[in-house]
């Protein structure tokens, strides 16, 4: 069974490494922001005033969400492959769906917050 080719697997592996580097930066910014932001208490109004209508934050979260949607499903593929007896086709389908769900939820949140600000 030679389902995904060596080339495809190599590119997925590389994509996972590159997205990991992006995530290292994004997660740091994300956590630092959280720590700073909660200093004055956490409220919806505060979040919207910071993120809403900001192109910079929108750009940041689009990159963040994309990196997660690439990184996590590839890792999940390896976990499912090593830890379950699922056939490779089934695994590809599952992680493909997982990528779409992450991307959809993440993008919805990012655009949603962006749209709430600046009125």
């Amino acid at each position, binding site marked *: 069974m030679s389902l995904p080719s060596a080339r495809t697997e*190599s590119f997925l592996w590389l994509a996972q490494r590159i997205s990991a580097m992006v995530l290292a930066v994004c997660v740091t910014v994300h956590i630092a922001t959280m720590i700073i932001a909660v200093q004055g208490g956490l409220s919806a109004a505060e979040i919207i005033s910071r993120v809403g209508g900001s192109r910079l934050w929108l750009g940041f979260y689009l990159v963040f969400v994309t990196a997660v949607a690439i990184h996590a499903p590839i890792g999940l593929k390896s976990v499912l492959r090593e830890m379950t007896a699922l056939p490779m086709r089934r695994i590809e389908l599952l992680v493909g769906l997982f990528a779409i769900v992450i991307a959809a939820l993440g993008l919805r949140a990012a655009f949603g917050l962006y749209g709430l600000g600046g009125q």
Partner: protein
Amino acid sequence: MQTDQISVSIWRGGEDGKYQTYRVPRLESQTVLDVVTYIQRELDPSLSYRFACRVGVCGSCAMTVNGKARWTCRTHVSRVADGGAITLAPLRNLPVVKDLVVDMAVFFDKWEKALGSFVGDQTRDQALAAVSPADPRRREASAGIECIGCGICYATCDVVDWNKDYLGPAAMNRAWTLINDARDVARLPRLQAIAGDNGCLGCHSQQGCVERCPKSLNPTVAIAGLKRESMKAALKGELS
């Protein structure tokens, strides 16, 4: 503390066998292989096990000793006897034939899959290739060349346990020595053979193989080298 007897539990039978216990006299400088040989010669001639050289060269005497894969001809009882007791089982990750004997066919089939044999294009009439011992590639090859094919790394590797198609540390260590052999001409087909999740990308780099290799080789470093080279080949569009 040295006792004058050791209690030895040995796996008997095939995959669905069970442990049987023997008492063996404790001797000075006794190896685990000496213990097994004593049992086979003096107590139970039906016991099956493999060995040949008895001096750490042939790689045939590997077994699971108190839970860890070891070469038994060079493992002293004093180093492993846990309160005067030893448990011996066949190597993990390979089909058990009988008692301490496993079927090594898959292990060596994977060497072939990884293109683990030299492919040259010179004839005996041509001049010998001049390879300097200081050449970086020659050094990489030298680092992995002393593999005795014992299968200890393969038995230790969890990825082999999880993915039956994973090539394993020894086969890829071998492929890496050949990729660094200036005379070899099968670089690309070999990279193609070891690329991907069943090959180098499947390795978790946690170095169980390195920890246990009796020849102190480092298959993890070899596999990391294969990751680099196969990734370069993928980016150049050389892999399919």
